[in-house]
């Protein structure tokens, strides 16, 4: 719970910083936007950015939909444009770093991302930036012990970083389950943090595989990093499901056989009689015609 509040206040602080970038309107009172950039790299592959746009309404920060933001790498110029994104209903927009900025990317191991909003009828223009250094996590496992190493790229060598907080967890839907009671780990002088896997007997699907995940979240220097590793530490588990069985709560084509038998036989019997009676009427009619 605390963690949630902590995150929220961190974001609030971040937002307040960006408010400083905003200029103020003269005539119509336009709203101010707070823009925040987040940097993500998963599995040391493709870096991406997530932009969050909020505004203060009724004393609370509310996400803003439909704000178009231009993103640049290091400097605001045509050659370094990452792209243009528009926020969704949750006030978020995301983009991968395109191939077009390859040259600029190669110039340094540290980059600054710029976000600019030109302003529109409702909101003042706004800006944000974020500087991150290149880092990665290496995840190794041995005998139910998991070791995560955080390395930073200094010039051309990967050097271990001390004191980085990270999480080591099993990847699950909606949230990652810590591998033991410790919620977070901190790297030591060798850049390493180790955790014992204590979640015995976790269901791991048909193959018994679990996906471990180590992640650094919201780090001031490195952004958000995560790596995954599949291990065979779960138990094999095949869920049973009544879906599509013939039950009373199944769809119409899955009605229980006994029910269909009973109801249709009654139905046919009764309507058989009725049809017979109608034919009977026709017979009576015919007799009447002959006379």
């Amino acid at each position, binding site marked *: 719970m605390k963690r949630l509040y902590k995150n929220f206040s961190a974001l609030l602080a971040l937002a307040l910083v960006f408010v400083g970038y905003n200029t103020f309107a003269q005539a119509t009172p336009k709203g101010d936007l707070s823009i925040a950039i987040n940097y*993500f790299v998963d599995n040391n592959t*493709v870096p991406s950015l997530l932009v969050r746009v909020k505004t203060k309404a009724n004393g609370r920060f509310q996400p803003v939909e439909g704000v178009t933001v231009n993103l640049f790498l290091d400097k605001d110029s045509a050659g370094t444009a990452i792209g243009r994104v528009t926020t969704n209903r949750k006030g978020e927009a995301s983009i991968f770093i395109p191939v077009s900025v390859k040259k600029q990317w190669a110039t340094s191991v540290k980059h600054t991302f710029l976000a600019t909003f030109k302003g529109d009828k409702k909101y003042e223009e706004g800006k944000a930036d974020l500087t991150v250094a290149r880092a990665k996590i290496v995840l190794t496992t041995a005998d139910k012990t998991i070791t995560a190493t955080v390395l930073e790229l200094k010039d051309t060598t990967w050097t271990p970083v001390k004191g980085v907080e990270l999480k080591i967890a099993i990847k699950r*839907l909606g*949230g990652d*389950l810590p591998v033991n009671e410790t919620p977070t780990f901190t790297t030591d002088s060798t850049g390493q943090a180790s955790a014992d896997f204590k979640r015995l007997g976790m269901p791991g699907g048909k193959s018994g595989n679990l996906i471990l995940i180590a992640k650094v979240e919201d780090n001031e220097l490195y952004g958000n990093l995560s790596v995954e590793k599949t291990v065979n530490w779960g138990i094999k588990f095949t869920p049973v499901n009544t879906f599509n069985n013939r039950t009373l709560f199944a769809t119409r084509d899955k009605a229980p056989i006994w029910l269909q038998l009973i109801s249709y036989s009654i139905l046919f019997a009764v309507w058989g009689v009725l049809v017979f009676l109608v034919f009977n009427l026709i017979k009576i009619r015919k007799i009447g015609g002959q006379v």
Partner: protein
Amino acid sequence: MENNSRRDFLLTGLITAGLVSGCTPKTDPFEAGASDVALPSGKKVKLLSVDGEEIEVDEAFLKPVPHMPPVSNTEARIGIPGKKFVMVIDLSRCKNLKKCQSACNHAHELNPGENWIKVDPMQDAEHTAPYWEPTTCMHCDEPPCVKVCPVDATFKRQDGIVLIDSDRCIGCRFCMAACPYSTRVFNWGEPEIAPAIASQPYSCETSVPQKKGTVGKCDFCADMTRMGELPHCVSACPNGVFAFGDINQDSVSNGAETFRFSDLIKDKGGYRLMEDLGTKPSVYYLPPVSRNFPFESGLENDKEQNK
């Protein structure tokens, strides 16, 4: 809440597997277990890797999937393979803030006055202590509402979610009579929704837009779960009352904390409502012991709607 959104924004599947598949029903449902493997879509995009290389990535492995098409009605009726969603509601943390309710109402564009989540003041007997009990649809495994629906308008999916097809519902309200949890609401008149939303085609997974003369209820945010995100009520509650997850993965999360489902139920004595009816709900409750808030702290917030 922040945690969540961050989590969605993952690039998955390159090395191992995606968190939630691109929802292709063709995936072997049970291979998944831990998490599903998205099928390659065949559409590749060129991106810059962190090492400055140009690499090609299949679109299906990108998270969030760029422009995820809305699922078809057929797919929405089948559900996500290999999953079985559950919710755990911790009564000891609830102080009737009703944030879950307002987030839900907002997300589903509910008609004002309508609530899919209700927070009931409960007192089981004269000398027992009162507590607040949020109720949603229980997504019963043997849902009486589905049993009685004459036209397949409400249905049970393989991932356990019970949904409503408002384009099918004839408005007979038999399901409302059959549901022992009184969770279903009816759109008695034309719902007051913004015209832009009201004119959208109805989707069973988002339950938007609600339509006159049809029934509605909590949908476990099937659209969110398809994207691997938590339902709106879960992320809206500042007290972490709701935890949501997949029982096949034995874990539930309230956004900030993730628990092993079986341990949580064992340690806190979890139970389900009206077990004797045999409806087999998917929503579990943790009893209101060692509470975080006194019952009275929620009274103020209850006045407005319950004069």
